[in-house]
């Protein structure tokens, strides 16, 4: 089944996920878009390793792309309709297998903002292009 993808929107209504994706190198953006296409067509469970679960953040998943800058995209199922939606929350870069401190907490706070105000704090996924 196909899933509907949303992106988190900040207070000004801007899309930080798309902005982050647009900063990726072209080849990393291609890899990230391939992962996002897979998520949209098959959900996160069909392809092993597509969006891993995270210790200490039960509602979040992480898409990883192999690259020298280690881009990571954080997302959640739903959070409004758990059976048909995913929301992309936050992009970050890992260094030495470590994320910047507070990344998961920030992603989780974005998820909460969406739950509290789904109409304004998320919008349909916008594909990043170079």
């Amino acid at each position: 089944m196909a899933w509907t993808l949303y992106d988190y929107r900040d207070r000004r209504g801007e899309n930080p996920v798309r902005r982050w994706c647009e900063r990726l190198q072209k080849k990393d953006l291609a890899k990230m878009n391939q992962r996002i296409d897979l998520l949209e067509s098959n959900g996160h469970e069909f392809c092993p390793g597509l969006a891993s679960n995270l210790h200490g953040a039960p509602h979040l998943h992480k898409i990883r792309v192999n690259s020298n800058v280690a881009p990571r995209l954080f997302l959640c199922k739903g959070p409004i309709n758990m059976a048909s939606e995913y929301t992309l929350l936050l992009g970050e870069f890992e260094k030495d297998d470590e994320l910047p401190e507070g990344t998961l907490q920030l992603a989780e706070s974005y998820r909460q903002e969406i739950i509290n105000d789904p109409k304004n704090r998320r919008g349909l996924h916008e594909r990043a292009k170079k």
Partner: protein
Amino acid sequence: MSELRSNLREEFHDKEYRHSYADESLNTYIATQIKVLREQQKLTQKELADLTGMAQPRIALLEDINYSSWSINTLRRIAEAFDLRLSVRFETFSSLIPETETFSREALERAPFKEDTWFHKKDVQAVEMPILRAAYAEQAQSPERKLGKILHMSVGSAAVASSA
């Protein structure tokens, strides 16, 4: 035209982009198909490891779409364990579009030799058409055009066979 088609049609004009996207699709296809085939044959990772002479963690690695260091030799061993043939081909970029759009469990499952109907049914003609259709469809590079041509040819030869 679907949104995905329309996006890829535009994005693939960039060489670096299309090769990166295709590389990731290949890794995804291989890892997911190994998992799907293993589940289709009701094998655990440990059982597949035993059949291939590999360690179970290696199978887990091969089933991860983020892994890209597989080799043809390794895949040959997996194919033999599944009693399937390994097919390695060079393809056009347009052929990636239907492959991406139809990517699913059903599209990845394959019958091992003992269930490969064409070899085991007594009435070969009754099973020949769907099997050949599936095989030709798999090979079609430019999906609509080439598949149409092949089906036309198959129907033509079936008509000749039945009139004979």
